[in-house]
């Protein structure tokens, strides 16, 4: 019986290897301007 279903996610530990290009959106720029978070942003690294 399947007790656990794991969603497909980006592994954050692995993302350290090729991360930090800095091309992604600055957090609240172009958006809410008051309640900052980064969860809803996209990775823009074209070298991944």
């Amino acid at each position, binding site marked *: 019986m399947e007790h656990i279903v794991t969603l497909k996610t980006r592994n954050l530990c692995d993302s350290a290897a090729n991360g930090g290009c800095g091309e992604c959106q600055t957090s609240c720029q172009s958006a809410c*301007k008051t*309640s900052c978070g980064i969860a809803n942003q996209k990775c823009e690294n074209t070298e991944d």
Partner: protein
Amino acid sequence: MIHQYKLGGYNIVLDICSGAVHAVDDLAYDLIAGFESKTKEQLLADMAQRYPTVPAEEIKSCYAQIEALRDEGQLFTPDTFAPMAGKFKEKSAGVIKALCLHVAHTCNLNCSYCFASQGKYHGDRAVMRFEVGKRALDFLIEHSGKRRNLEVDFFGGEPLMNFQVVKDLVAYARSREKEAGKNFRFTLTTNGMLIDDDVIDFANREMSNVVLSLDGRKEIHDRYRVDYAGNGSWERIVPKFQKLVAARGGKNYYMRGTFTHQNPDFVQDIRQMLDLGFTELSMEPVVCAPEDPSALTPADIEIVKQQYEELAELMLQRDREGRPFTFYHYMIDLSGGPCIYKRISGCGSGTEYMAVTPWGDLYPCHQFVGEERFKLGDIWNGLDNPEVQGEFAACNVYAKPECQDCWAKLYCSGGCAANAYHATGAITGIYESGCELFRKRMECAIMLAVARAAEGR
């Protein structure tokens, strides 16, 4: 670190440091809850008692699945990121890639809840001259290093009160893009009062995003968003917004509302936006001093948390009906979201992002404009406030003591520096009620992702 919660009929387990998300049954949920604090024998015995109809072998098999996930680095992953926290900003020191251009410190509305004090930012009314904006764009290109994507927001006050300068600045930036090897992404944030066919044509051609201020229901919107004669703006702006969005051809936009003590039941305002035909939505809790009459009370916060759950249910319902809509804070790309550097480095204010006043002064972000201590320099002579620059360079999620045990830290990156400063006097503090709402939003956003996966969407 893990975080477990039950929402929308799902049992959800987040492995914070790997980013893994698991939907589990009750047995696995309870096993995971006791996994680190009890011995295997104790835990299996407890589960045998709690689930008398489940065979012992089944419980052992579930335990083994949890062990396997731990061994694969998808459960109970240790937090090893602290030493990396300052690295990203160190590596990109001096690189600026985003500017908020305050093209108009004036406004044609007089909203009492405005954080910018009706667009004046506690100073004098002013509009930005083309020469100032041009120099700001040059400054951005000069300081952007190898970054290709540069973001520029036309902000205010009301930026359309200085529309010709906005148009001229976009034309200037476009003229420099190719030789500078840059890609400008522009955003216009507007209250809608001055939208006409010329604005619609320009915005839909040149703006990567437009942020349209609408608080939802007419009576809610018109409570705060009034002109200087005290007349509500809803009836004047809604048809303009509808025309702009209809002509936008699928390009990004947000209907962006603020909810206050007047309307903690903000899902009613979301429903109003949907009824008006808008589908890209954002509603933000008001940010103001606790004594302000618009401030959310502790009782409001509880209502708002319920509303976030109702909103998630509404989104699922509309998905099933083939009428989906987007809520800005529930957008979460679990497989393609930001890397760990971004997640621990903070929002970028005062380092890669700055605000420019109409006369060319630089501040860490739009919310610090007018706070003299935070002035970083100006676009003519560059940055000259190493003390404050250093504070922002050192500000990341591991520099905030209250964030250390928070399960949401890699989803928020430490939150808004301005909110933290206004709440605690330090940018490394936290804005507690904002955190509470952020955590609730993340729980709902991830539940939505789990539900959509379960429903094959």
